[in-house]
């Protein structure tokens, strides 16, 4: 009927609109954002090709081209970077091939954090077959196959810094895993050189060329590190990740041959939040070359790994970190421009810092000098460049999840030489964690778990309850905290604003009068909200962080609101 008389359809539509317009005051609603789908990036795909990347070229392109784009970006000038896109309505991510909620659940024990992704580890009681060698590059080492047939990449500490890179690799690997990222199984191994046997098929890379590996080659590689006092060797053994390696992932764009790779990486919350976790662990080498995509078949999807944590904490892999690391990019375009223009008299803060090695097994790992907001990896990347306060806060929540006990348990896995060194490292990590929490929690209004209920009485009112993580983590005192709030209900056409003092404890309650509330209005269903409640925490005299927004929906049957979303 309608098909035959299309004008009738349009006329009917006009009539409905007119009827709606005449039926009373407009009851507007807000559309809630769509949410990411948990299983969407683990659907089966055709096997992707392994990709090889010209590392230097790509790093230069990112450092020069990317930084020029960033430097002249209007968004950067006005401080209005895009927010991440893969967010739930409560400002979180869903578990995926990139990330799994672990420490963030609050249920990860220190023992589980220490265990990380590990299982059995290499069998060092029997012969370890060397199947490949690498005599050059930043970090010499070799690949072994143990009696169980598992393959591990073995990396050695630099001479004079026994434990440094291996402990950093294992400890940080555990902490990144506990934070939620995919990491390989990394172990500290102690072995006799006599247990190593070079496979007749083994090859070694020397001056960029592969040739058959000999026992002498192995001896040369071992000579690049110090042995333990008992003559045995200590190293980091990193188990090959499951699946087929298909090259690194980048911190921007998507992988074209992976249809599951949907969100552009620079807008992924996990990768932006990774900036904060990396700053905590001083992972200055967080770049695409230290990532790996693996094709997991079955069922046939790409899992995204972080690999190689030897350049974390105080370790620069082949030497201790330098004061510059963590403060400035390896190729910092704009500071370099500044130096050009000032004839070299401009100095970045790190340039006056005296190098101080805390211990040969720790390297350079500053605590008091650490500034969470200005920390830099050695190379820029788009995801880190555009971190917003909400991203930083999300990452800081992960870091805040690590108790002192979690940290100590993970450090134990690094087999550092003395307890004093372990305590020093734990103290540094705790100080850096607390600085991160103070900094990023101060950038937002750190509220979580919002709940609302309508208070009965002569005057209708709304009670909003929430956890103030700033009070929960004891960053601020309740006595010095108050909240400004502003309610805008487009459905009931209510606008109100006010202030409230913080109460005792982390769980806070604010009462908001609802003048003009019509309890008989029908409810709103689906992906709709009806009101926004903006809250800003004021700590002392400082209006530091940006406000949080709680999205509310009117529930007609219960004649009350429910919280259906949260943005920081």
């Amino acid at each position, binding site marked *: 009927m309608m098909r035959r008389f299309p004008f009738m359809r349009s006329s009917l539509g006009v009539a409905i609109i007119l009827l709606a317009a005449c039926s009373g005051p407009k009851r507007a609603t807000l559309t809630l954002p*769509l*949410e*990411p*789908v*948990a*299983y*969407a990036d*683990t*659907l*089966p*795909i*055709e096997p992707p090709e392994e990709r*090889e990347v*010209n*590392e230097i*070229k790509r790093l*230069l*392109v990112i*450092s*020069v*081209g990317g930084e*020029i*784009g960033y430097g*002249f*970006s*209007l*968004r950067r000038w006005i401080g209005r970077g895009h927010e991440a*896109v*893969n*967010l739930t309505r409560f400002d979180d991510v*869903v*578990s*995926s*091939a990139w990330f*799994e909620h672990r420490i963030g659940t609050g249920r990860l024990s220190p023992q589980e954090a220490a265990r990380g992704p590990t299982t059995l580890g290499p069998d060092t009681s029997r012969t370890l077959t060397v199947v490949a060698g690498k005599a050059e590059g*930043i970090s010499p080492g070799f690949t072994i196959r143990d009696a169980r047939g598992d393959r591990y990449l073995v990396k050695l500490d630099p001479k004079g810094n026994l434990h440094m890179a291996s402990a950093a690799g294992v400890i940080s690997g555990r902490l990144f895993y506990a934070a939620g990222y995919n990491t390989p199984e990394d172990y500290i191994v102690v072995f006799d050189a006599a247990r190593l046997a070079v496979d007749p098929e083994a090859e070694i890379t020397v001056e960029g*060329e592969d040739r058959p590996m000999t026992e002498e080659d192995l001896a040369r590689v071992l000579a690049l590190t110090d042995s333990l006092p008992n003559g045995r060797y200590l190293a980091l053994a990193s188990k090959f990740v499951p699946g087929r390696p298909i090259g690194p992932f980048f911190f921007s764009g*998507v992988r074209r041959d992976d*249809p*599951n790779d*949907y*969100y*552009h990486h620079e*807008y992924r919350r996990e990768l932006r939040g990774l900036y904060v976790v990396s700053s905590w662990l001083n992972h200055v080498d967080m770049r695409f070359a230290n990532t790996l995509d693996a094709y997991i078949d*079955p*069922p*046939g*999807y790409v899992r995204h790994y972080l690999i190689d944590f030897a350049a974390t904490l105080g370790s*620069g892999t*082949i030497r201790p970190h330098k004061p*510059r*690391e963590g403060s400035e990019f390896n*190729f*910092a375009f704009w500071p*370099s421009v500044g*130096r*050009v223009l000032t*004839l*070299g008299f401009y100095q970045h803060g790190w340039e006056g810092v005296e190098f101080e090695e805390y211990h040969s097994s720790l390297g350079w790992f500053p605590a008091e000098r650490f500034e969470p907001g200005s920390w830099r990896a*050695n190379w820029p990347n788009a995801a880190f460049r555009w971190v917003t306060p909400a991203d930083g806060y999300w990452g800081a929540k992960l870091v805040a999840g690590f108790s002192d006990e979690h940290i100590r348990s993970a450090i134990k896995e690094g087999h550092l030489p003395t307890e004093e060194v372990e305590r020093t490292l734990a103290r540094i990590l705790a100080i850096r964690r607390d600085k991160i929490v103070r900094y990023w929690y101060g950038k937002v209004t750190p509220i979580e778990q919002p709940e609302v209920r309508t208070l009965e009485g002569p005057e209708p009112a709304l009670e909003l309850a929430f956890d103030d993580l700033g009070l929960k983590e004891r960053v601020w005192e309740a006595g010095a905290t108050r909240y400004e709030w502003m309610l805008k209900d487009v459905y009931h056409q209510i606008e109100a604003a006010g202030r409230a003092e913080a109460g005792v404890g982390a769980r806070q309650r604010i009462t908001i009068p609802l003048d003009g509330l019509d309890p008989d209005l029908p409810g709103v269903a689906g992906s709709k909200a009806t009101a926004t409640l903006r809250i800003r925490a004021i700590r002392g005299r400082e209006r530091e962080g940006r406000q949080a927004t709680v999205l509310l929906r009117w529930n007609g049957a219960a004649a009350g609101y429910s919280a259906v979303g949260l943005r920081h």
Partner: protein
Amino acid sequence: MSSIRKWLLPPVAFIAMCMSLDTVPCLAQDTDGGGAVTPDSADAIRASLERPPPKPPFDAVDAVGLPFEIVFFPLRVAGLTVAELVGLAVKPDPEPVQFIEALKDVGFRGGVGSIGPRSGVAARGGFVGLPPLFLQSAFSIRGSQRHRAGLRFEGREGERLEIAYTFWRNDEPYFYGGIDSAEDINRVYLWDQQTFALAGSLRLPIRPSAVLSLVGRLAYEDNRVGRGRDPGTTPIQDDTLTAGLFGVEERVKYLRGGAIIGLDLRYNEGLQTRGLYIEGSYDHFFGVDDTESDFRRVAVDLYGYLPINPRQQLALRLLTEVNRSLSGTGVPFYHLADLGSEHGGRAYHQLRFQDLAMAAMMLEWRWEIWRELHERSRIESFLFYDAGSVMPRLADFRIDDVRRSVGIGWRLITSRSGLLTNYIAFGDDGVRYRFRFSTAF
């Protein structure tokens, strides 16, 4: 029907997948061998998903920022292009690498650079696969050539003995009139020089950081001048002022003997050269066959590097050269002392000023703008001031004749690949921009 599938497929697929996955909640796997989610059926699932857009939509800030993006787009493209080129230069893509590796395997060594004043960019390559024999050839985009072949014997302490034949063809400019010459590049000539030379050198370490080097050289050289080939210029033979110069028409042959003594007190700390280097040379040219000309040349070159701190430095070069005719028709014009470009005047063309003698000073304020973390390379910027002159005799030096250059540049210094220099200079002839694979000092 399609809407039913749209709503049912995701939850069904999700339940099917979540039942047997070994990690996280999100796993796609068939549970009983039937109804497996395949890559093809997964496409349909993905297409049916309602989720946030893959990147933020274009908004008002993007709209306002678009003109900025357009304005700075060329700069960004330039930056990306430079990055691509440098990246490829430092680490070429695998296919060219394999080709270069194959060439290296057979003893080939190559590079890119200049081989003369007007040569333009030249590609050079050499064969060193059968020591002590060596062969080198270079061709430039402007047709200049340089070829060497010979035997080279090297000792353990740096001593060297070399017997070589060299052929050099270069298209060069000549600016008539000494220090008062005008910038008129329309007089050019093609200079063919063949040299048979026997040279020996010694390095005598005085201290670990100080080396005295001695070089002795005996050569027979044969020079001929032809017509420059650039169609937009005037060959030297066609200009009444220059046609009669000694060496234009004559084939000039010399037996040449000389020595160079150098005292090297330089040392390298953190890719920054420090210390002092002084070099003096003496050459005597005896005309042979029909060449009625004997002359001698004395040159002194001094380099000083004074670090202010690890990032800033004052560097100085003083250079002088005197040619003196001993008998006959004098010094051929192509053997005159010269001033210009990296030889004392960066705001001027190479060979811009020529006469029997020259003296110049080159001063640089250098400061580091970048250093690679692993200390393998650094970039420094430099402000420079060059001042120099040419004259018949050093005693004729007049401050009013000094030609000055000022400018700014940057220099990439790597422990492996050598140097890359880029500068802009201002002088009496105007502005000059240069990109070079070497440095003045």
